[in-house]
């Protein structure tokens, strides 16, 4: 972490960048927030640890509008989002100095709590430099421990890889965290009977409170004004009046990012109701991979997105029924 701070200081000092976009330590051990640092002094609050899950690419949309360059720290998975945003002209590559930071999996405080750990005072082992596989949690009830992997976000278990897709320099080592297959859960649902699928999603979506956190955190959902906030489709319904509203919202949310979603997993991370929203996005990714050839959004800045592309031999929509 000190290396990151030093490098940031250097670049602020020599005027290469006007500001640094990173994470600021919170007042609890697990709540660092995305933050801008404009002078060396403020960097004393800089932090980079297992709880820095936020994808800073999203913030680069606004940062691109500011005067001067922004030094931004991107985790491997964040770089996909950045590429995708370049492709959509939503960020300015020239305005960004990207330091690719290592990642050994990001933590989910809910998962730690789910193990019955409460009254948390401090957490050890979350630093990026820590080698330990176990987190030591000091609580008002004494010391507890928790395996690092057990506290990891779902997305880290199916990590796309620890390679930065775009960067100006790289700092820090990464550790492979993948121990599951990305599409397993989607495939499991696909195999269910229609009534069972319906019940599954009905139950999950009934929790939705339409807080829009999933949308607003999403680097692909970068519309200035979402269709669900505008009158363009007569679809601006803030309420969760009937279960249909949520289905409409979540299907369209996923559809609008189909072929653009990098599967960064932010939607699921931020959902206050713990809805596995990535299951929608991944369904589209899986379909696109299977029907139109493997495609990873954000792999590059040039390739044609699957929904703005076609071949004469594309599968007919009836394939949906035939695949069973």
């Amino acid at each position, binding site marked *: 972490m000190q290396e990151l701070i030093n490098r940031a200081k250097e670049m602020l000092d020599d005027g290469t960048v006007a500001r640094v976009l990173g994470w600021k330590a919170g007042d609890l051990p697990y709540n660092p927030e995305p933050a801008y640092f404009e002078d060396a002094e403020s960097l004393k609050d800089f932090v980079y640890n297992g709880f820095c899950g936020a994808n800073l690419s999203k913030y680069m949309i606004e940062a691109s509008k500011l005067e001067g360059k922004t030094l931004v720290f991107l985790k491997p998975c964040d770089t996909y989002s950045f590429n995708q945003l370049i*492709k959509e*002209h*939503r960020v300015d590559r020239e305005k960004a100095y990207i330091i690719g930071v290592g990642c050994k999996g990001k933590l989910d405080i809910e998962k730690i709590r789910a193990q019955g750990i409460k009254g948390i005072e401090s957490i050890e082992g979350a630093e990026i430099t820590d080698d330990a596989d176990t987190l030591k949690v000091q609580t008002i009830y004494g010391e507890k421990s928790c395996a690092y992997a057990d506290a990891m976000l779902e997305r880290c278990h199916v990590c796309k890889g620890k390679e930065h897709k775009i960067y100006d320099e790289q700092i820090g080592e990464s550790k492979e965290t993948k121990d599951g297959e990305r599409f397993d859960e989607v495939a499991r649902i696909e195999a269910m009977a229609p009534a069972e699928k319906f019940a599954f999603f009905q139950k999950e979506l009934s929790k939705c409170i339409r807080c829009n956190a999933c949308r607003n955190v999403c680097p692909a959902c970068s*519309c*200035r004004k979402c269709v669900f906030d*505008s009158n*363009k489709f007569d679809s601006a319904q803030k309420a969760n009046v009937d279960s249909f509203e949520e289905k409409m919202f979540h299907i369209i949310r996923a559809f609008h990012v189909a072929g653009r979603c990098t599967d960064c997993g932010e939607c699921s991370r931020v959902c206050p109701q713990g809805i596995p929203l990535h299951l929608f996005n991944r369904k589209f990714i899986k379909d696109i991979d299977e029907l139109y050839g493997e495609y990873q959004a954000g792999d590059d800045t040039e390739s044609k997105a699957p929904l*703005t592309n076609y071949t004469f031999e594309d599968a007919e929509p009836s394939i949906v029924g035939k695949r069973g």
Partner: protein
Amino acid sequence: MQRIGVFVCHCGSNIAATVDVSKVAEMALMEPGVVHAEDYQYMCSEAGQAKIADAIHEKKLTGIVVCSCSPRMHEATFRKAAERAGLNPYMVEIANIREHCSWIHKDMEEATKKAVILMRAAVAKVNLNTPLQPGESRVTKRALIIGGGIAGIQTALDIADAGYEVDIVEKTPSIGGRMSQLDKTFPTLDCSACILTPKMVEASAHEKIKIYTYSEVENVSGFVGDFTVDIRKKARSVDMDKCTGCGVCQEKCPSKKAPSEFNRGLNNRSAIYTPFAQAIPNVPVIDREACIKFKTGKCGICSKVCQAGAIDYEQKDEIITEKYGAIVVATGFDTINLDKYDEYAYSQSKDVITSLELERVMNAAGPTHGHLERLSDGKAPKEMVFIQCVGSRCSDDRGKPYCSKICCMYTAKHAMLIRDKYPDVNVTVFYIDVRTPGKNFDEFYRRAVEQYGVNYIKGQVGKVIPQPNGKLLVQGSDLLDNRQILKEADMVVLATAIEPNPDVRKIATMLTASIDTNNFLTEAHAKLRPVESPTAGIFLSGVCQGPKDIPETVAQAGAAAVKAIGLLAKDKLMTNPCTAHSDELLCNGCSTCENVCPYGAITYEDKEVNDHGIREVRRLAVVNSALCQGCGACTVACPSGAMDLQGFSNRQIIAEVDAICR
């Protein structure tokens, strides 16, 4: 709030027999916005149209729904009627209660119910209609032809004869194209130069035609009716106005080692050269790569011998910017590179040649002055073998998947000409299929076999092996006799596949004209609009669109000319008002819409917007309504809903959906 009139047509008994029309009219009055409803025998009749006009005046209608036959039938009629009565024609909607209702349902109650719903959907839509004005754009009455081959020349002549200015841009020093390289033409066997040269002369002499040779299109902007094109006139090093075309410079030029492009590299030319005797313009070009003066600074002989003082070593490339209303692409073709076909020994033996090379060999002005001889030793051949489909109909990456179309016929022509002029030469043709659809084509091929005794063998050649004795061992198979053939030949001629001129990619990109996987330009519709590009104002002439022979090329050139004339004849273009438009405050500038627009109608501009008090410069989609055809692909691609289609807006369609589902 709209004031809507609903007019229900009986269509005699066509509708009224199954739909209770008065009930539909009665129900219409219940709909929001409807202030007038009536039914009538024939709404499309003069009396019916008069009723609409009267209602518009009396009830001050702002919108109209006609419940009648298909809009494909009478939408235009009713729009005109509304317009005559002072209503914007796009305030008219049709509820199709004939084809989609009365004609397919028998039960009166059911059909009436459905007719009411269709009426409601139309009313719901009209409630959201807004008056639309077709846009206007001016037309520059000048056409640009890219490519000066027979296709370009013919198109230029046709357009010029109709009285419009035409500019031809030709990359090489002379117009004439591939056809000028041909010796004879099938199926009439008349001399190619004899029929082409007069056309070239006519084009150059035509007061409406301006020819830019040794020039290339550098940049294209604008849209249908109003293109702006930059043309690069490459430095010729010879003053076109002073040169008399005497040819002394070429004779005296000491550098004579440059391969002649015109003769397909079979012989050499001087550094200062005109490609061929009948070249137009008859003004030479200095090939600066080959010229000793340019390479070493010494020489300057041409300048010394030129009586007219036309040589200008200092000449520079010149950029000419001109406006055009229409652009015709006629970039033609070339033969494919045969490097990957080493089994045919093309690069190993001088006696294995392409058909186009044979044209030059057979031509009196060619490298052998028209004598059929082996290029290796100048000996007269006794055995000639022709191999068909070299690189055509090939699914691997060595060749082209399509049929080049012209090879069967020109091979028959070559075989026939050789047998005619040199009866002692045996000619064998190895073919896969002989394809001769065309007027007098099959007769021509049969003549080669029956009258001239050309030996046609069904079966592709596997290998051509140069022998130590200078002969070529051709290994083929006769599929019909089921035997393998080993034949010693003196010359082998390869019917090489043709491909679009490689430059076409660059040009298509400039024109935003689409191109297929084989680099042929795509037509707007494969059947119904074969000479137009999907991009408005761009027309296709000749082989750039697909393989064709001379008569087809000329026919298409004429067709392209007619389409261009049709455009140039207009003073103004009325554009379809049902086009896409982008809401600047919602646009993200993401380019998704641009990627799905088949017409290149969407561009991005940095514009200042005032978003509820926030002033900033944003990258925004701008639709050129002159190019937009109104398909709506962009409206769905746009995630924020910024892009919408006039006449079929999101809210209009949703209103229809709601009305149907309620």
